[in-house]
């Protein structure tokens, strides 16, 4: 039982990170109907930004409090990736918005290749290890919970709340939901569609940056090809939950995290990704639009 709860906690931590990245996928998909393949690499960029900020700050201010350090890593990472995603959308996706479905997908795949190779070229191909930031560990009964796990879950919860508030309660969120439902109609009613889409990209990137920084904090290592596997997992999470649905993305992220940690605990660690993908395929066979996705209305 204790072992099970332990795995549950590990899964929840991992699932929080996937969920944060999945939101970026699902928002972009909801608003412009494209798979933003470069989103996983935005997550990786967020991790690298946090890594570099960490290195600079620790070399200038040796005794900096960890809380302040983490906050700065998160904030600068969010600003940095937000700017990157804004530029990427302007340069690579916006000119193709009226084009056929596969064109932005191809530029997104190209952007993903460019971003990971850009980091490989500028920062080197080796793994970048950092010393552990948060080392406190709590023991409750036979269960071990580390402070960084608690931090990840809490930060995720706070961000999700803030995010939920923005989407559901602010004029900006209203504009986003309107754009998602009917872009042309929203534009006719005075919503600045371009701006709304840009802000959506920035928001998605900021969440991915937080996920990237926390991934770095959790595993203590960053690498240029970190974007692909977590990116695909997060995308899987978004689809599993029903792409376009925000609660679905979080649910999918948590599910994927749980499946992964439970499968590696009870079956084999080698086949954990196979299990994740197989469950995705299995769920989609019975619910072709994901768990919380709206069924597509076919119009003739």
């Amino acid at each position: 039982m204790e072992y099970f709860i332990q795995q549950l906690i590990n899964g929840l931590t991992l699932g929080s990170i996937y969920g944060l990245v999945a939101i970026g996928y699902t928002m972009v998909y909801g608003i412009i109907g494209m798979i933003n393949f470069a989103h996983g690499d935005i997550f990786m960029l967020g991790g690298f930004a946090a890594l570099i900020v960490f290195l600079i700050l620790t070399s200038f201010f040796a005794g900096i409090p960890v809380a302040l350090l983490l906050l700065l890593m998160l904030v600068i990472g969010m600003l940095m990736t937000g700017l990157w995603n804004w530029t990427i959308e302007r340069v690579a996706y916006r000119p193709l918005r009226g084009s056929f479905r596969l064109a932005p997908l191809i530029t997104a795949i190209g952007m993903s290749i460019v971003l990971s190779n850009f980091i490989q070229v500028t920062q080197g191909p080796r793994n970048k290890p950092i010393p552990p930031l948060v080392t406190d560990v709590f023991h409750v009964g036979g269960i071990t919970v580390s402070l960084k796990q608690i931090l990840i879950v809490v930060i995720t919860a706070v961000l999700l709340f803030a995010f939920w508030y923005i989407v559901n309660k602010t004029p900006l969120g209203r504009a986003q939901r309107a754009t998602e439902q009917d872009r042309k109609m929203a534009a006719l009613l005075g919503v600045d569609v371009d701006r709304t889409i840009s802000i959506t990209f920035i928001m998605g990137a900021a969440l991915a940056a937080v996920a990237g920084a926390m991934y770095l904090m959790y595993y203590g290592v960053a690498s240029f090809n970190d974007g692909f596997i977590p990116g695909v997992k997060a995308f899987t999470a978004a689809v599993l939950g029903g792409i376009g649905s925000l609660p679905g993305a979080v649910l999918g992220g948590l599910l994927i995290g749980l499946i992964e940690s439970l499968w590696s605990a009870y079956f084999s660690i080698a086949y954990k990704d196979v299990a994740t993908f197989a469950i995705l395929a299995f769920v989609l066979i019975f619910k072709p639009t994901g768990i919380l996705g709206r069924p597509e209305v076919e119009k003739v």
Partner: protein
Amino acid sequence: MAASTETGHPNVLGKAVREGVFAGVVAFLMFLLFVGIETYQDINNALVWRTRWGLLAIFVLVAAVSRFLSVGFIKPHIDRRKLAKAKSGVLEISEQKSFFHRHFLKIALVFLLVYPFLSLLIVGKQGSLKYVDNFGIQILIYVMLAWGLNIVVGLAGLLDLGYVAFYAVGAYSYALLSSYFGFSFWLLLPMSGILAALWGIILGFPVLRLRGDYLAIVTLAFGEIIRLVLINWTDVTKGTFGISGIAKASFFGIWSFDTGSANSFVKAWGLSASSVYYKIFLFYVILALCMLTAYVTIRLRRMPIGRAWEALREDEIACRSLGINTVTTKLTAFATGAMFGGFAGSFFATRQGFVSPESFVFLESAVILAIVVLGGMGSLTGIAIAAVVMVGGTEVLREMSFLKVVFGPDFTPELYRMLLFGLAMIIVMLFKPRGFVGSREPTAFLKERRAVSGSFTKEGHG
């Protein structure tokens, strides 16, 4: 207002300066951490950093200047040209095509047939190895894969992000069956095609109800599953070490290309020993396989099944209401595409003599899909051109050792290969969103055959 935009250069220039400065600021902020700072491990293996302001300045300058030029000069120029074209009212499509244009396919085919001998003649035995193998065979493998994927994506309109799985099935079918049972290439080539087609059907079944992007992620997942199984099923596949020492193809069982064997090709023809003959032979094999793919695709498109694929791509609901069985239509598309992937895979295994899961990563699927889309989906010629440009272009980059003179001795062009490949994907897509060949002649027509621009149709075909 119109006069001021056409003649008012100060206005345009002012805007260009503003945009250029803005782009410079954005670039400065974007690259500040990633280019301005370099992280590396010192002697104690601890991560440290140093600054690279010079490189950062170059990045910022390039961004600012290119934005300035594009806003100030390139865009007004393009606008003026568009305006002039619209005013003159003459379509630029001329009825009389040039000789080269009309006979392009014949010229290309003849060139391909003489290509190995041409390179042998010009650069000699040792030099031509590179041209036949790295350029010829490599590009043709991608042409074949892209033509195979074209059946699934371009004709049937099913977005498949895991095509490399079938390539892997073909490669491992040949590698395993030939090393465990010693079957020959010519027996296993059709067999690996059939096995891949079988996998196409197996993987196609569960995804029949899925559409568009759901289909994309599930095919991606299947591609990853197959790769992960290949990595982890170490008893059979030897995992990440891969299978080496895969048998070479023989000259249709008559001569062998192994140097030690009694009836070797080289001895039979009294030639001096060189691996170039084997490469030339392989070149013709893959060329024949490509031609087979093209022939089958062209013929199938005229058959009811090919028409059903294209109808399915345009409108699935209309298709079903007209009584087309979408299940068999989708499955045959998957199976046919997978079969050609399987052929290419077994050819790849015999050419490399070594297969490992490393060769079948998602990036390969992405590259193949990019070639299909960049070529203008559905157009065989366009796809072949895209393969030559994209694959050949990155291969050329390997050869650019003269760049070392420009950028210093520790400059390695290989590092920038995929970076430039990605950039090329983006740039081609931005300028030609319909691909290289955006228009295509229809297979079914009323009275006269008329090419339609890709922008008039749903997915880019006439």
